[in-house]
């Protein structure tokens, strides 16, 4: 089983992610235990829960960013379309290319222009494209991220010359340019104003047909607006985080099974 998905295949499909029994440690401290979660292809899954319960950690295990922290270890299994991502069936760089990530703080590459930022992923993962393809890619990705009209005359400016919201959309465009099958987003709107937030939520809805989205958010309205499914994480004091409940977003918000979920989504704790 190899990763021979044609690069930039226009007809590529969103992929499903399955996490089974995932536990994580930082050093000897266990921060996540026995997480099972199915992230179906083409759907938006929201991860919610109070601060420090391990949402970011879980998200980072999904594209092998977790192991970059020196003391970090994990157990369990994560499959993309049925293929294990940790045991060498797919090279780690391909895993990360297929499962993209947008970070909490916008982080465009400072030494690159707007246009260069969009196609940075091609350079970084060694994909060759013709000039026409590249120009097309720049335009289509920026359009998908809802940024094209704002920056089409500023493609030569440094990436950091944009506003925070624009930078974040640039980062989304950058992730989309390598045609990921899954896009992980860690509180992508937490540093943004309501307008930019709306714009990004719209982007998420638009791309979710071709990309599976997993998003961490502290904003309950946002979770309701954008996600199809929802997973509620919780960590008791001095214990690792777990999934308390997961299911269709509507269910989680209208009649949750667990009282703790009910409390959380109604803003009664955390």
């Amino acid at each position: 089983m190899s990763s021979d998905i044609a690069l930039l295949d226009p007809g590529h499909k969103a992929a499903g992610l399955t996490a089974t029994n995932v536990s994580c440690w930082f050093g000897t401290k266990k921060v996540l235990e026995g997480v099972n979660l199915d992230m179906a292809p083409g759907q938006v899954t929201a991860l919610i829960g109070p601060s420090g319960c391990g949402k970011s950690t879980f998200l980072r295990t999904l594209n092998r960013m977790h192991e970059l922290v020196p003391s970090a270890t994990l157990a369990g299994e994560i499959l993309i379309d049925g293929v294990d991502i940790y045991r060498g069936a797919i090279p780690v760089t391909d895993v990360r290319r297929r499962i993209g990530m947008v970070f909490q703080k916008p982080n465009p590459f400072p030494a690159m222009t707007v246009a260069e930022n969009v196609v940075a992923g091609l350079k970084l993962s060694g994909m060759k494209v013709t000039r026409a393809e590249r120009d097309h890619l720049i335009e289509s990705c920026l359009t998908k991220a809802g940024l094209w009209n704002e920056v089409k005359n500023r493609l030569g400016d440094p990436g950091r010359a944009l506003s925070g919201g624009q930078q974040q959309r640039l980062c989304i465009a950058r992730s989309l340019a390598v045609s990921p099958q899954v896009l992980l987003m860690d509180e992508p709107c937490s540093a943004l104003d309501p307008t930019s937030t709306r714009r990004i939520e719209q982007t998420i809805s638009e791309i979710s047909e071709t990309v599976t989205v997993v998003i961490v958010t502290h904003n309950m309205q946002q979770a309701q607006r954008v996600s199809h499914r929802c997973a509620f994480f919780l960590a008791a004091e001095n214990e690792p985080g777990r999934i308390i409940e997961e299911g269709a977003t509507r269910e989680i918000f209208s009649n949750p099974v667990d009282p703790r979920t009910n409390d959380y989504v109604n803003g009664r704790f955390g």
Partner: protein
Amino acid sequence: MSENILSEGTPVTSTSDVLTPVVRRSRADQIFRGIATTASVTTFILMGLIGTFLLVKGYDALRVAGWSFLTESAWAPDQGGAFGVAAMLPYTVQIALVALVIAVPVALCTALFITEYAPRKLRRILTAMIDLLAAVPSLIYGLWGLFYLQPRLITLSKWMADHLGWVPFFTVDDQYGTSLGLFPSSTFVAGVVVSLMVIPICTVVMREVFSQAPAGEREGAMALGGTRWGVVRDVVLPFGRGGIIGGSMLGLGRAMGETIAVTLIISPSFDAKWSILDQGSNSIAALIALKFSESSTFGISALMAAGLVLFVITLIVNAAASTVVSKSRSGASTEI
């Protein structure tokens, strides 16, 4: 979630079955790592070679001199006489200590000034000045010390000898009384000039550590109505103790190895003495620079041995300094 596709040979017995992520690096990455590692190993080897070669080439002389190399103060290897570093070593230390006595307080004040007191604009200028102080060649300091500072400084030397003569280091015995001609080319003058080269080294380290003093505590002290000095005394200085000690030691290492400025200023003496004010001083580095051109093969071997002693001492001092400094530095953290 129902279909758990488990790979063969990985039974999920318990959750604590820790997974070792498999990383297969691409060819380019392997080459990249290879090159980076080679460069590092080269650096490694180079360092080892310095000690080795000094030892190998200094061996002849060391064998002849034996332990007396550390106790003999004469230097006449080419004349078949005895030779050793017993005079140079104390002089080297004396010069370095004089330099530190001046440099550490100045560096401390400068570092505090930059981090705590200076207005922003002045802070930038002063930081640049300190960097420049480090960039000016020691040769230039030597020239300035010799031609400008020394004639002025010996007045102070004389004054100290006359009025503070009861301090052991300042005693100058001369039955005819002190005259200005007694004071040039001394340990004191050399030390003062070397201090200029030590100041930036100490300042940089101290400034870095001070600037890491926790903002919370600093503001906490301010919010309690503390004066600026209060903040410095109760928060910054205790926090920066490692930096002060480590920075001073780094300066010590640098001061002991300083060659050219010392060579220009001192007139070599081979009798160790306590007093630092009067003429005649020495240092291992200066000895090497001065004797090198007139030495035979054996003489050079003896110089290599002296170099080895200097090398080992600066190494020990510096290693200790780095340990102290790195302990007081906070590590980088990953933000999630």
